[in-house]
């Protein structure tokens, strides 16, 4: 269960999120909508624990009080952030980064298994054959960077997925893949918070949080 109580957040003294309350059970997905600047992404980053966000309130995932933990520790408790614009990281190749993520996920895969599963996924997602050897996102398009995020979700089953506009800028096949992934995550008891501007997908979800100026409209 995810329980968020009286969550407010400020950046450089400016309040962005104001008194948000959310309760989600295992297997539930919440669609977060709202205009640009309404605080959708900031809400996800606050839950993730971005260091420059000053947050108040409680965030609990099952029996873990996430709001007491730094960002990397929240990740190790199963919180997965799908970034809207993942950065380039020079000097770090993709497979080395996946291997490090694997280590903090209790070595879910052996090294050989990780390489083989990751390469299969990259191929399936239509990424170049040498993707795993490339420096992380360096020179990659926005769509390729999002596919990198998708592959990570597929490899390391998060308990709580924070998806920041995962469907924007992707071709139809990959968009379909995202929604299959959300269904599968919910099917195994995971919880998903999905930010999207796409009006078409609103009919797919009954749980909707609409934000305006950082507050909940519904």
């Amino acid at each position, binding site marked *: 269960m995810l329980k968020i109580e009286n969550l407010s957040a400020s950046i450089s003294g400016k309040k962005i999120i104001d008194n948000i309350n959310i309760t989600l059970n295992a297997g539930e997905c919440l669609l977060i909508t709202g205009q640009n600047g309404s605080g959708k992404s900031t809400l996800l980053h606050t839950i*993730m*624990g*971005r*260091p*420059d966000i000053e947050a108040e309130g409680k965030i609990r995932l099952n029996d873990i009080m996430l709001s007491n933990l*730094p*960002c*990397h520790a929240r*990740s*190790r408790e199963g919180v*997965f*952030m799908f*970034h809207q614009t*993942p*950065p380039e*990281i*020079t*000097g*770090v*190749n993709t*497979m*080395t*980064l996946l291997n*490090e*993520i694997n280590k*903090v*996920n209790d070595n879910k895969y052996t090294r050989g298994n990780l390489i083989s599963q990751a390469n299969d996924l990259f191929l399936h997602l239509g990424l170049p054959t040498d993707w795993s*050897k490339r420096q992380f996102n360096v020179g990659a398009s926005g769509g390729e960077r999002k596919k990198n995020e998708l592959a*990570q979700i597929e490899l390391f089953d998060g308990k709580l997925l924070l998806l920041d506009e995962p469907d924007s800028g992707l071709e139809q096949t990959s968009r379909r893949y995202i929604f299959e992934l959300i269904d599968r995550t919910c099917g195994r008891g995971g919880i998903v918070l999905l930010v999207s501007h796409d009006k078409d997908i609103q009919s797919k979800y009954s749980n909707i949080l609409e934000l305006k100026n950082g507050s909940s409209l519904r």
Partner: protein
Amino acid sequence: MDLHLGNINKLYVDADNVQYYIAPSHTDEVQEISFTFIQTEGKCSASIVVEPMTNSKSKVKINIFAENNAEVDCVCKLYVDVGGSETDVQIRSWPFDSSKIKARPEMRIYNSDVVATHGNALGTLKPQEQYYLATKGIDNYKELIKTSLLHEKL
């Protein structure tokens, strides 16, 4: 025009007190000449001279990692002659802790009708990159860079 070390007339490396130094081993197959220096303590210096053959182009990439109180002084001299357009030298340095890195790309251009480029970037990780890695559970950025530079070459 192929890019490989077969086009190199002279390649000269003078390294003093370098702890970990990785250079290309299959010189007739690589497309890009790449060097990596990893220094965890003490002072070291390295001088790399690359002189491609006439009508050939070379791309040289140098990674330098330093930590603790290590000091690295590195210069790469790349000669650019007739037909050497697109010749490029790029140095990327990561000075962690209180280490110091002095890195200089130098191009000796002997013909005015070439387009040659160079770059020299120094710095560790930007806050946005650190946050991204933290969202993946990684808080030891220094080890990640070091491991990745070693794995890339070995």
